[in-house]
C-alpha cells in the first residue's frame, strides 16, 4: 500500500495498514460476488474495467497512491490547514445547492467529469474531524466550560445540518459520532446517558403499546420515589426532578414521537423506521403524504419492508457456515437492492454465514481497538482527538450499516467502511485512516 521507503515508513503502524488492506480486498471480493454471473468470462470483464469490482480495484489503486502521498506529507500540514479545509468543505457543501447534481433524489453531488462524481458531505467528515481536533487542541481551551463545549458541538453540527438539507439523513447522522470523541475529551457523560435513554424511549414507543409503556414508566417513577423517599425528604428538588423526568418521558412517548413521525418525517422515513422494528406504518397519518394526496400526487402505496426483508433473508439463509463463495441465491438473483453499496454485508452473510460475519466483525473491532490504542499513545491532543474521531466515524458507519441489514436499525444510506462499492466512500476512509497513520508516525511531536 505504501512504498517501502524507510523514511516514509518510519513509525507507521503496519497493523492498521494490514487491516486496511485486508478489508479493501474483502470489499472487492464482496462486490465481485454481487456482480458475478455464471457463464460470463469474469476475467475478461475484470480486465475490461467495466464492472463494479474492477472499478473498485481502480479506486483502490488510486487510494493507495493518495495514501502514499499522505504518508509522504508533513504532519504539520494537517494542523496548519485544518481550519482552512473545514471552511473549504462547508463552502463546497453550500455550493452543491447551486451546482449540485441530482443522484437518487439527493442533490449532494458535484460532477467532476469523466463519469466521476464527488460528494462534499463525504469529504467534509475528514475536514470536520481535523477542525474538531484543531479546536480541541487549542492551548488555552478549557473544555469543561459550556461555551467551548457549545462551539465544538457547533463545528460538528454545521455540516450535519447542511447534509440534512441535502436530504442525506444518513450522512447527517454520522456527524453525531463526533460526540464520542468529545466525550473522551470531557463532554459530560450525562449528555450520552440522556441521548441513549432518549433513543431507548423512542424505540420503546415504537415497539410497545402506548398504554403499557405509560404504565411501565409510571411504575418506574413510583418505585424510584419509594426507594429515594429518604433523600426526597431531605431534598425536595429530587422529587421535582423525578416527576419532571416522568412527565417528559410520557410526553415524548405519547405526543412527541407520534407528532414527529406524522408531521416531521416524510412518509418513507417513518415507514423505514417502523419496518426496522418489524411494524407497518400507516402512511395515511402522515402530513406530507396527506398534502401530497391533496395536491393530486400519486396515492400512498402500501408500506413495504422489501429491502429489510430480503436483506434478512440473505443473511439468515447463510446459516452457521454460509452457502459458499458465489453460491448464495439471494445474491445471484439480485434480490437485495443496492447490494453492492449499502447492503454489501448481506453478500458476506449469505456466502460465509455466522462464522464469516463474526470473523469479519472481529476484524473491524480489532481495527477500532487498535485506533483507540493509538489515540491513547498520542502526545498531542490534536492527534488524539483526530484518532478518536476516526474511530467514532468508523464505529458509527459499521454499527448503523450492519444493524440496518440485520433489521436493528432503519434503512439510511450509510456505507460499510472500505467494503461498500463507491470511490467517494473508499477515498474518505483511506484519507481518514492514513492521516491518522501519518500523525501517529509523528506521535513524539506535539502538534497544535
Amino acid at each position, binding site marked *: 500500500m505504501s512504498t517501502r521507503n524507510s523514511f516514509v515508513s518510519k513509525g507507521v503502524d503496519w497493523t492498521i495498514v494490514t487491516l486496511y488492506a485486508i478489508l479493501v480486498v474483502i470489499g472487492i471480493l464482496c462486490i465481485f460476488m454481487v456482480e458475478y454471473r455464471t457463464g460470463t468470462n469474469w476475467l475478461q470483464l475484470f480486465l475490461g474495467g467495466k464492472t463494479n469490482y474492477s472499478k473498485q480495484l481502480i479506486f483502490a489503486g488510486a487510494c493507495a497512491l493518495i495514501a502514499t502521498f499522505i504518508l509522504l506529507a508533513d504532519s504539520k500540514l494537517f494542523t496548519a490547514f485544518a481550519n482552512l479545509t473545514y471552511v473549504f468543505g462547508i463552502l463546497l457543501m453550500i455550493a452543491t445547492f447551486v451546482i449540485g447534481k441530482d443522484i437518487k433524489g439527493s442533490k449532494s453531488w458535484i460532477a467532476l467529469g469523466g463519469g466521476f462524481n464527488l460528494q462534499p458531505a463525504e469529504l467534509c467528515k475528514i475536514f470536520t474531524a481535523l477542525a474538531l481536533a484543531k479546536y480541541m487542541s487549542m492551548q488555552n481551551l478549557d473544555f469543561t466550560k459550556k461555551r467551548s463545549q457549545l462551539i465544538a458541538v457547533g463545528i460538528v453540527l454545521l455540516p450535519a445540518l447542511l447534509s440534512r438539507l441535502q436530504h442525506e439523513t444518513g450522512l447527517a447522522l454520522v456527524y453525531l459520532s463526533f460526540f464520542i470523541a468529545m466525550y473522551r475529551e*470531557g463532554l459530560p457523560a450525562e449528555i450520552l446517558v440522556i441521548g441513549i435513554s432518549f433513543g431507548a424511549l423512542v424505540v420503546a414507543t415504537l415497539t410497545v403499546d402506548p398504554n403499557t409503556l405509560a404504565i411501565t414508566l409510571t411504575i418506574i417513577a413510583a418505585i424510584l420515589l419509594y426507594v429515594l423517599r429518604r433523600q426526597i425528604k431531605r431534598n425536595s428538588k429530587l422529587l421535582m426532578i423525578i416527576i419532571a423526568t416522568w412527565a417528559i418521558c410520557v410526553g415524548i412517548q405519547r405526543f412527541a414521537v407520534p407528532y414527529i413521525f406524522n408531521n416531521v418525517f416524510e412518509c418513507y422515513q417513518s415507514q423505514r423506521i417502523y419496518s426496522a422494528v418489524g411494524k407497518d406504518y400507516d402512511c395515511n397519518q402522515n402530513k406530507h403524504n396527506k398534502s401530497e394526496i391533496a395536491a393530486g400526487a400519486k396515492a400512498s402505496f402500501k408500506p413495504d419492508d422489501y429491502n429489510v426483508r430480503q436483506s434478512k*433473508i440473505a*443473511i439468515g*439463509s447463510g446459516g452457521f457456515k454460509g452457502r459458499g463463495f458465489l453460491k448464495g441465491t439471494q445474491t*445471484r*438473483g439480485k434480490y437485495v437492492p443496492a447490494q453492492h453499496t449499502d447492503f454489501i454485508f448481506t453478500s458476506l452473510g449469505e456466502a460465509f454465514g455466522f462464522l464469516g460475519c463474526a470473523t469479519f466483525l472481529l476484524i473491524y473491532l480489532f481495527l477500532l481497538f487498535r485506533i*483507540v490504542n493509538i489515540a491513547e499513545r498520542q502526545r498531542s491532543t490534536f492527534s488524539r482527538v483526530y484518532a478518536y474521531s476516526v474511530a467514532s466515524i468508523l464505529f458509527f458507519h459499521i454499527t448503523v450499516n450492519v*444493524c440496518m441489514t440485520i433489521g436493528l436499525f432503519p434503512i439510511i444510506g450509510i456505507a460499510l467502511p472500505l467494503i461498500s462499492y463507491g470511490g467517494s466512500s473508499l477515498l474518505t476512509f483511506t484519507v481518514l485512516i492514513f492521516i491518522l497513520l501519518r500523525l501517529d508516525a509523528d506521535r513524539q511531536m506535539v502538534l497544535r
Partner: protein
Amino acid sequence: MSVFNQSRSRVVQIIFTLIFVVILIQLINLQIFSSKYKLAAENNAIYRKIIYPDRGIIFDRKKKAMLENTISYDLVVTPVESKGTDTLSLCALLNIDTVEYKRRMREIVFKYTAVKPSVFEGLLTQELYAKLYENMYKFPGFNLTDRSVRTYPFNTGAQVLGYIAEVDTSFLRRHKEDGYEMGDYAGMNGLERTYEKVLMGERGIKRFVRDNKSRIQGAYENGMFDTSAVAGRNLYTSVDVEVQQLAEKLLANKIGSAVAINPKTGGIIAMVSSPNYNPNDLTGSARRKNLGRMLLDTARPMFNRAIKGQYPPGSTFKPLGAVIALDEGLITPNYGYTCYGSYSNCGVVVKCEHKNAGHAASLRLALANSCNSYFSQVFRMAIDNPEYHNSTLGYLKWKEYMNKFGMGTTLDVDLPSENKASVPDTAVYNKAYGKNRWNSCTILTLGIGQDKMTATPMQLANMMCIIANKGFYYTPHFVDSIEHEQKDDTLFLAKYRRKHSVIHTSDTVFRAVHDGMHDVTVYGTASEIKVPGVEYCAKTGTAQNPHGKNHSLFVCFAPKDNPTIAVAVIVENAGFGATWAGPIGAFIMEKYLNDTIASDRLSEVERISKADLIPVAIKDWYVKKENQRQAKLILEAEAAKAEMNAESKQSNSEEEENSEKIPLGTEKDKEQLELILPDNKNIKPLLPQNKKDSSKKKNTNTTSALLIDDHKKWLAKKSKA
C-alpha cells in the same frame, strides 16, 4: 485534562464491544436459530418448473384408443420484450381489436408482471396456430408454447370418459397432499377422475435459479435435484367403441339411457346417457365456448343418467320379484294365479293387460304375459311371509334381497358420484303411513316395480347380469386392466374381480325365469323385436312416472344359453317398452354379438335414431333460450349503435343525418324483436325499459323524436293495410 479523562477510553471501548455483542446476538438469532430465512431464500430463488408427462390413454376392449393426446398451442407473451410487435396484424389474426389487445396486456402486466411470459391467448385452433406460426417474426416477445390436450377420435363416451380441466382453488384445497399446483390439469369427471392417479403419471420437476424479476438464471445445482417426468399409464377397458357409438346414435334425439354389461366379467360394454355431447367439445379451445352452455342446459347433457338417473323399473322388475319369491321358497316355477284382468284383493284395483284366464298359470306364463296380478300376489306373499310374523319384518327381508341384487345400493362402479337410487327403507313407510299401519297392500305396486322404488339403468343391467348368470355378478366396471399394474392398482381393481354370489337357488328355478323371459321375445310383449341368429331373453317395461308420459324400458340378455351381454335401456316419456327401448336394446345386442347390424335392419337404426322423443317442455325451453339469445344480440347491437350515435353527436352535433338514421334503426330493431318474440314473456319486461330510454332520447333530441313519430305513423298505416 487528557489524563483526567483517560478512564473514558475504557468506556469507549466498552461501548464498542457492547454494540458488537448486540450485533452478534442478532446474527446468531438470524443465522442459527431461524430456519425460516433459508426457506424464504429458496422460495425466492428456486423456480420449480413442472415437466408434464403425457396422460395415459384409455383403450376399448379391442385396443382402440377412445381418447388420445394431441398438442395444443398457447400464445405466450413477455410484455417487456413485446415492443415493436406488429399489433395490427396480430389483432387481425386473433380477430380482436387494439383496445382488447391493450386491455389484455394491461391485465397480464398487472397480474403476472411484465417480465414473465404469460398466456396471451390459450389453446389455439390448428389454423390459427398455422397462421401465427408463419407470422411469428413480426411479433417479438410473443411465443408459441405447446401443451398436451385430449382428443376423442370416436367422438363418443363423453360422460364415461369425463374430462380434464384446470384445477381450481377448491380442488387444490381438497387435494392438498397430491401436489397439484395452480394451472395444472386434472380429471374432473368420469374415468379421468376415478383413475386420475394412474392417468396423470408423475410430473418431473426441474429446478432453476431465478432472479428478483423471475428471470431464469440457470439450473439449480446443475440439475442435481431434478426429476424426470413419467408418462401416465394406459387403461384397458371393457367398452366396445362401436357398440357405444351405435347406442349413442340410437338414443339420439331422446332422453334416456342404455347400459350394456358383460355378465361373465361385469365389464361394461356400453354406457350411454342421452342427451349426450361430443367429448371434443370440452377439450382445448372448444371448452370455453361450450361448457357454460352445457351446464345450463335443462336436459343436462353432462348428467350421466346411466348411473345417476332414477327410474321406476316397472315391469322390468318382475323377473327379480319372481327370483326373490323362488329363493324364499314361497312359490315354485309351477305356481299359478288366476287373473281375470285385474288384481283387487287389496281394495285398490291393479289392472292387467291380459284378461284370459290361465295367462298366469305358471311363472313362465306369467312372465311372458307380464301379468300384474301374478306379481302383485307374489310380492304380497313375500311381504306377508309367515316366517317373519309381520309385514315390516317381511319387507325388511325383501329389501335385504333387493340390496343383495344391487338395487337401492351403490354398486361401486369406477365412475364418480354414482347414485344408489331407491328401495325405500321401512322408515319411509313408517313416516308416510304410521308405524305398523302399512302392510303388503299399502305398498302393493312395489311388486310391479312402481311405488317408491327406483333404479338406475346400470342397476337394472346388473340385475339382468345376475339373472343371466343364475345368481352371481361381478361389480360393473369399465377398467379391466391397467398398464404396468402396481400394488395399489391391483388393490383397487380387486373389487371388480371378485365374484358376488347373491343366491344359491337351483338351476331349474332360474331356468323358469329364463324361459319366461325368452317367451317374452317369442310371443310376449317383445315378440316383434328380433336379433338375427340369436335367442335372447328380455322383459319390457312401461313405467308410470310423475313427470308425464310413461317411460319406455327394456332389459334383456343374450344369448339365452350362454349370456355374454346384458342390457338395460330406458327412454323417457316414450310410451311402451317394446316400441322404443326394445329395439334399441336389440340393436345393441346384435352389434355386440354379431359384430355388425344386418344390412336390412340398418334403415330401422336410422329411423330410431331420427325419431325425436324429447318432451315438449324441454323443447320449449330450447326455443325460449334461443329467443333470449337473439333478443340479447339485438339489444346489444342497439346499445352499440346508440353509443356510436352518442359519440357522433358529441363530435359533430351539427351533422344531423347520422343522429336521424340511428333512432330509426333502433325502432326497426325493436319491431324485429317483437316479431321474433310474439309470445315470449321473459323478454317483455326488457322492452318497456328500452322504450323509456328512447323516450329520454326524444326529449333531448327533438328532430329525431319527430322522425320517430313519423315512423310510427307509417308503421300504423302499414299494419292497417
